Structure formats: structure tokens, C-alpha cells
């Protein structure tokens, strides 16, 4: 009876966007009388933080403080169409739509500022703090609140914009499978360290260390949130979870958390990661997205680490203690 250690790695890609495209998202932006910008969407935040990153992207393009950007979602009466939040598409598609809308709004904002400051719009820049100022002469500036008031009540202009992003839908060749499924690919590589207890069959995951390449991090803390959450979900998938414990039979189906086995705080591995950014050709600020990929690379990395530890490949997940003990037993029978 022993505790055997093992190390395993896995390297994966993950495609961005609904497969084959045809999944548009739209955004509308308008400024209030006092320089707050409302981004209207019908997109959903599942907890990953879409409302936050979209406000960041909008604020960046407009050149206004983050706090000046309000996100209004989701309501099908007021928000333009969004295909939905899935397939790691949201930041990519909605982000691109917001950039387009924000660029239109920004252009009008600068035109109004140009009229107020009596200068060409090309000579203006935003300072990100709420001011539009003349390049090279920052003392000549106008505050966004004054600008918005002027636009509304002096010039009769609407500082607003419309945006849309869609990868056109394409078909699959039924004979060869030729297709254009995705907008870009993110990549990940995970190294897992495990220990297998040969007496109980239990696997302890000591660490999951990964590199993620995701194009661009809009919000590093939220990226880390996906990495940590995905790591645990991946570990759960490969070691614990099943809705059909006697798959493919339908006996003893779990009904809740007492019989659907999931890891908790005591089972956490050390999770360490580095994030690389190689901007994609078509993502907003080069964003690729990562919401799904983070659960994928830990799974084979852990399975490969178990193989390394016990010298037997178990190719059916979840790799439960029972499967490990049976595999060890079989290995011993074979060698006898």
C-alpha cells in the first residue's frame, strides 16, 4: 500500500464563437444630458462579469471614466439583439459591437467638443478622466458634463452610437467536413501533480499549474476567476461527477448535492497560472475569450498524471477510487 505521485500535462485549443457563426450581437450607446453613457444590451451576465468588462471596453473607446458608463441589460424591449452568453462568445462579439457603437458616439462627442472649443475634431483627445482637450494644449478642454449639456441643449445633437458584430453563418460540406467554425483560438497548457492512494483509490490533486493564452485580458481579476473556477470544475469532471454512476444504465440517479459528488474546499489543489496575450486578429482589443477553456485542460492533465502515478491508463471518467482499485488489481493480475 503506497501513495504514488505522478505528473501529467495537456495542451488544448478552444474556439471562440458559436460554431459556424451566424451569432450576432448588437449594442446601442447614448449619452445622458450629463455625460453618462448608457450601453443598452440584451446580453446576460452569468457571473463571469460581462457587465463589468463591457463597461470597461465602452469606457476605453469613449475615453471617459469607467464610472461614467452604465450597462443596461437585459430586456428585449430596450436592448437590441444578442444571441446569448455561451460558446465563449460574449466578450468577443458584444465587445466588438460596443466598440463600433462607442466609436460612433465618440465621433459625435468630439464634433460637439470641436464646435465648443473652436478647433478641428482631429486635434482633440480624451484624457480618460472625463475631459476632452486639445492635443498639446491640455488647458484648453471641456468637461464631459458640460459637453453633454451643450450637445443636448445648445446644438441639438445626440451623442449616440450603434454597433453590431457578426461572423456570417457558413455551412459544412457534408462529404469532407470543410467548414469555418470559429473566429479565433485560445490555448492552454496545464501541468497537474497528483498523488494516488493505492489502498483507497483516492486521488489528491496537489497542483494545477497552467499557462493560458487568451488574446487580451480586459479584467485580470475576472480572468483569474475563470481560471480558478474552471480548474475546480475540470477536476470535478475528471475525478468526481456523474449523473449516471452506472453509465450507461439509469440506476441510482443522483437527486441532489448529497449524492452528486463534487469536490469542496478540502479538495482544492494549488492553482497557479500565467496569462499570455497574443491579440487575435478580430477580437475587441484582441480578446479571444476563455470562459470554457479553463475547465478543459485540467481534465486530461489530471488523467495523464494518474497514469504516470500508477502505471495504468484509465480512459473512462470520472476516475473514481473504484476504477483505480480495479485497474491496480488488474495490473497485478496481469503481472502475476
Amino acid at each position, binding site marked *: 500500500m503506497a501513495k504514488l505521485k505522478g505528473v501529467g500535462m495537456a495542451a488544448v485549443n478552444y474556439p471562440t464563437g458559436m460554431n459556424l457563426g451566424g451569432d450576432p450581437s448588437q449594442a446601442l450607446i447614448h449619452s445622458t444630458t450629463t455625460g453618462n453613457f448608457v450601453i443598452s444590451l440584451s446580453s446576460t451576465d452569468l457571473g463571469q462579469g460581462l457587465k463589468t468588462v463591457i463597461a470597461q471596453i465602452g469606457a476605453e473607446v469613449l475615453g471617459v471614466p469607467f464610472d461614467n458608463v452604465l450597462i443596461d441589460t437585459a430586456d428585449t424591449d430596450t436592448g437590441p439583439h444578442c444571441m446569448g452568453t455561451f460558446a465563449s462568445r460574449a466578450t468577443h462579439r458584444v465587445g466588438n459591437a460596443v466598440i463600433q457603437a462607442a466609436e460612433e458616439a465618440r465621433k459625435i462627442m468630439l464634433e460637439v467638443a470641436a464646435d465648443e472649443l473652436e478647433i478641428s475634431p482631429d486635434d482633440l483627445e480624451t484624457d480618460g478622466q472625463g475631459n476632452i482637450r486639445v492635443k498639446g494644449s491640455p488647458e484648453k478642454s471641456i468637461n464631459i458634463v458640460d459637453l453633454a449639456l451643450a450637445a443636448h441643449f445648445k446644438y441639438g445633437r445626440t451623442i449616440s452610437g450603434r454597433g453590431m458584430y457578426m461572423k456570417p453563418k457558413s455551412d459544412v460540406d457534408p462529404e469532407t467536413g470543410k467548414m469555418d467554425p470559429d473566429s479565433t483560438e485560445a490555448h492552454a497548457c496545464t501541468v497537474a501533480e497528483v498523488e494516488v492512494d493505492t489502498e483507497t483509490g483516492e486521488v489528491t490533486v496537489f497542483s494545477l499549474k497552467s499557462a493560458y493564452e487568451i488574446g487580451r485580458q480586459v479584467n485580470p481579476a475576472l480572468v483569474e476567476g475563470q481560471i*480558478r*473556477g474552471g480548474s*475546480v470544475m475540470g477536476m470535478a469532471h475528471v475525478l468526481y461527477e456523474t449523473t449516471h454512476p452506472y453509465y450507461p444504465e439509469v440506476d441510482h440517479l443522483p437527486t441532489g*448535492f*448529497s449524492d452528486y459528488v463534487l469536490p*469542496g474546499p478540502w479538495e482544492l489543489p494549488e492553482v497557479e497560472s500565467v496569462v499570455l496575450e497574443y491579440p487575435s486578429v478580430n477580437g475587441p482589443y484582441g480578446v479571444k475569450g476563455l470562459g470554457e477553456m479553463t475547465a478543459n485542460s485540467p481534465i486530461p492533465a489530471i488523467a495523464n498524471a494518474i497514469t504516470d502515478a500508477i502505471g495504468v491508463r484509465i480512459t473512462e471518467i470520472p476516475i473514481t477510487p473504484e476504477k483505480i482499485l480495479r485497474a491496480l488489481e488488474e495490473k497485478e493480475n496481469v503481472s502475476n
Partner: protein
Amino acid sequence: MSVRIVNFTLNGRNIDVMVKPLTTLQKLLREHLNYTATKTGCKQGSCGSCTVLVNGEPMVSCLLPVEDIVGKNVLTLEGLSDNGDLHPIQESFFELFAVQCGYCTPGMIMVSKALLDHNPDPNRDEILDALTGNYCRCTGYEPIIRAVEESARRLNLAGEGV
């Protein structure tokens, strides 16, 4: 159909409520009193999203009949902040990104409060022990553990300042 009147203290206020027998505290809070911070993840007592404190002890309100809290002190997330100021535990969860979808958050915060009230300087194992009854699918737990550590630090600092 009989009803009874139950008297207890909720978030510092003494109240009387009229309930049918075996109404759960979860249902009373959410549907009778509109205190919806306490969540309904499973109604099986296994996810912890309905955690409230009863006389300082964390309990799953989905399995707790209101009859069992007669005369007791109940604290929900709504009662945690004082005059609208965030409790240090709430601050820590917010600043350390220990929330994603937010559904497990009320339960996590309440169970953390119970821990820190009993044990102001818990080590990591004690924090893990306190959190094991609360399920989270989004965060991978580590940010929550760190938020509890930070909460302890802030509470101790605040205590020293007195």
C-alpha cells in the same frame, strides 16, 4: 388549518409572525417578509445558500421550522451591515473578487460571520471546515477562503483600534 403566532428577533428587531405549522424559516423570510437575500439553492439542506445565524450558529433555513426559533435571535445578510455601512466581511468579499454569480454569496458571508464571531483568528483548516457546507460552482472556492482570511485581518484591526 391551524396557524400559530411565533415571536422571535430578526436582525435586531423583535417581531411576531403568523405561520402554518412547519413553515420553514427560509419560506418565512423570503415569501412572508420579502427578505430575499437568503437563497433557495436546493431545499435539501445540502448547498448552504440558505444559511442564516440562529443565536449565532449557522443553520440551513430550508430545513428549519419556524417553531424552532421561537424566542431566538436570527441574523440574515440583510442585518449584517450597520446603518448602510458594509461589514468588513462584505467589503473583503467585494474587494477580493470572492463573488461571481452571487448566488452562494449570502450563505458564504453568513457562515463566515459565524466562524469569525466564534474564532477571530482562524487558520486555513478552520476556515475550510467552516465553509464545507456551502457550495459554490463559480469561484473554485479559493477567493472565498482568502476573503475570509482578509475579513479576519480587518476585524482584528478594527478591534485594535477601539
